[in-house]
């Protein structure tokens, strides 16, 4: 019997405004629909029920310590790239209750695990780097000897509508990390934007069911090819950008110049771990404010702290988990003192974990090349520059 919905791997075309029916279909299926919204001069993820609320006609300019929203002469729907939020905000939220304890009238304690609300989330506009970052977090929270059931309960029903990037910010280096720009797996649907239409690749059965309910037409081979070409041309342009830095054209594809990023990942684990006492750590430690912004915006950073929140009578106590950062003194605090006392040692911890020891722990890099840590660093510290400095001078 033929499937009642579009099978995984099929490509269809919808008119741009029919994206609304996909949102509607997701809402009807009980999803809380999330998408990019323009808030406080930045593209953030927030509730999105009408496609007209997308930041249509805006793009972002990003550089070290710099983020600006500007108008897009091409009036694209998804011309911007990644903002300060990522999928982490929805599967591993900044604050959540893990456990509740109650002391009864006899003074006896009992506890129950607090699981999050069950309403599943659908996110529209997810980029390849963020899909890969989600896989990195899956490895941490789901695939070790212990499963984080709070993460799991949000992660499993997550519905993801990805977008193939057609444009890279100056801070993007997914091409170096081999995490983009083309969407390759982990999505329910993947959109490629054109002037009047989207090409949609079906990535899951649920995705197929959702698209089947919209006003779709089959893609011609040419349309599929054109969709594949969009991220492919961007990828080529990003690679060309590496060769033509700092300031020349990268063909006809729009790649922000002149500060495009590139990270040479050859032997990077050994490069970092063999240089733990390099003078560069002290130099970057002098610039770093230890503000933790990089760890907050990083889509893979998973550190957290748990605190006790008690009622006035102390009879009801919640254990609340919040994002934590290796840039704080309390992160490595023991009663015998703080292990990492200096900013330089905290930056070294963060970068060596992200790019080197993550491989030991999880068999992959902790960096997906999204560039958020560069953009949102108040002083514009750039990990690609720091790694290049270690590579250039191993004294």
């Amino acid at each position, binding site marked *: 019997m033929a499937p009642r919905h579009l099978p995984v791997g099929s490509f269809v075309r919808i008119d741009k405004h029919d994206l609304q029916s996909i949102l509607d279909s997701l809402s009807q299926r009980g999803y809380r629909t999330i998408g990019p919204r323009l808030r406080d001069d930045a593209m953030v993820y927030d509730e999105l029920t009408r496609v007209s609320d997308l930041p249509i006609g805006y793009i972002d300019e990003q550089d070290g310590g710099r983020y600006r929203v500007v108008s897009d002469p091409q009036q694209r729907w998804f011309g911007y790239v990644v903002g300060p939020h990522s999928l982490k905000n929805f599967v591993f939220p900044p604050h959540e209750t*893990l*456990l509740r*304890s109650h*002391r009864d009238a006899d003074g*006896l*304690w*009992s*506890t129950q*695990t607090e699981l999050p609300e069950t309403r599943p989330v659908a996110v529209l506009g997810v980029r390849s780097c963020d899909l890969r970052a989600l896989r990195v977090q899956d490895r*941490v*929270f789901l695939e*070790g*000897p*212990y*499963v*984080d*059931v*709070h993460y799991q309960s949000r992660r499993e029903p997550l519905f993801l509508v990805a977008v193939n990037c057609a444009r890279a910010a100056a801070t993007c280096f997914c091409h170096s990390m081999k995490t983009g720009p083309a969407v390759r797996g982990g999505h329910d649907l993947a959109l490629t934007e054109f002037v009047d239409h989207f090409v949609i690749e079906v990535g899951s059965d649920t995705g197929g069911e959702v698209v089947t309910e919209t006003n779709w037409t089959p893609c011609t081979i040419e349309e599929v090819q054109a969709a594949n070409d969009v991220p492919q041309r961007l990828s080529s342009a990003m690679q060309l950008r590496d060769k033509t830095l700092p300031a020349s054209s990268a063909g006809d594809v729009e790649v922000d110049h002149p500060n495009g990023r590139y990270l040479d990942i050859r032997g990077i684990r050994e490069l970092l*771990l063999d240089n*733990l*006492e390099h003078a560069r750590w002290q130099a970057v430690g002098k610039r770093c404010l230890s503000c933790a912004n990089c760890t907050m915006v990083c889509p893979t950073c*998973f*550190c*957290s*702290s*748990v*605190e*006790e929140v*008690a009622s006035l009578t*102390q009879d009801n*106590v919640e*254990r609340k988990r919040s994002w*934590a950062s*290796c840039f704080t003194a309390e*992160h*490595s*605090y*023991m*009663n*015998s003192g703080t*292990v*990492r*006392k*200096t900013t*330089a*040692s905290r930056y*070294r*911890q963060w970068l*060596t*974990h992200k790019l*080197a*020891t993550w491989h*030991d*722990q999880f068999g992959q890099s902790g960096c997906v090349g999204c560039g958020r840590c560069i953009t949102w660093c108040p002083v514009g510290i750039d990990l690609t520059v720091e790694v290049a400095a270690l590579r250039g001078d191993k004294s």
Partner: protein
Amino acid sequence: MMSAAMDHRASSPWTVHWANISKMAAEVPGVTTYELTFGDPLIAREYQFSPGQFNMLYLPGVGESAISISSDPAEPEKLEHTVRVAGNVTRAMSRLHVGDQIGIRGPYGSAWPMRSCREHDVVIACGGIGLAPLRPAIHHIIHHRDDYGRVYLLYGARTAKDLLYTEQYDAWRNAGIEVEVTVDIGDAEYRGHIGVVPILFYRLRLKPERTRVLTCGPEVMMRFVIFEALARKIKRDHIHVSMERNMSCAVGLCGHCQLGPTFVCKDGPVFTYQALEPYLNLENF
């Protein structure tokens, strides 16, 4: 061990099991041993641990603290933790009474290599509260005394009044463990050795190829124990250290206890020196 066979993946790692304090014994100033008995008879029956493992002890409204298990693994129903008052949780524990409740998650972490220590001479070198996580290993060795060669306990504390479990040393000696004790600061009544723990190595005639070292104590003490062991040509992977870091979740999810490529909570706390060598002497690492 039962604990290893349990399916950790089936339930929330944050699940707390409630226990009551069945005994409290003041050890030395600021240190108390708590015997805990699980309220749930099923947990009480199934709970097992290996020497060197730890539990997360929980007081609602105060928090959790990683505390090593200090009792005999052959008698898991008499689950003991020897706790030094050091922070909020341990201070609040010191104000509890027999019958009060404590939440437990565990056991967690790696164990002393009791199996690979068989047919070896074993040097147990520890300082201060660092004897507590090694006492289960001492119990284990005594239960299986013929499996091990010569066994030395080198133990030191700040003063004679800070030496833990002194009433048990004779029993340990009678069971075939050579106990050498030292203190940093002597007093008028103290007649024993004065000096730091690593110096006690000079009293031993070790056969390096058949010796294993188990050490737990302040990091600086362990570094010098390692120095003495290496000076005696003991292999790097025959030196086992129990590390302390900020273990908060105990299951490798919170990130606080990282030490280089390891999570001390789940990859440790017991490591071979070989595994930690690149990182142990780095300042602020």
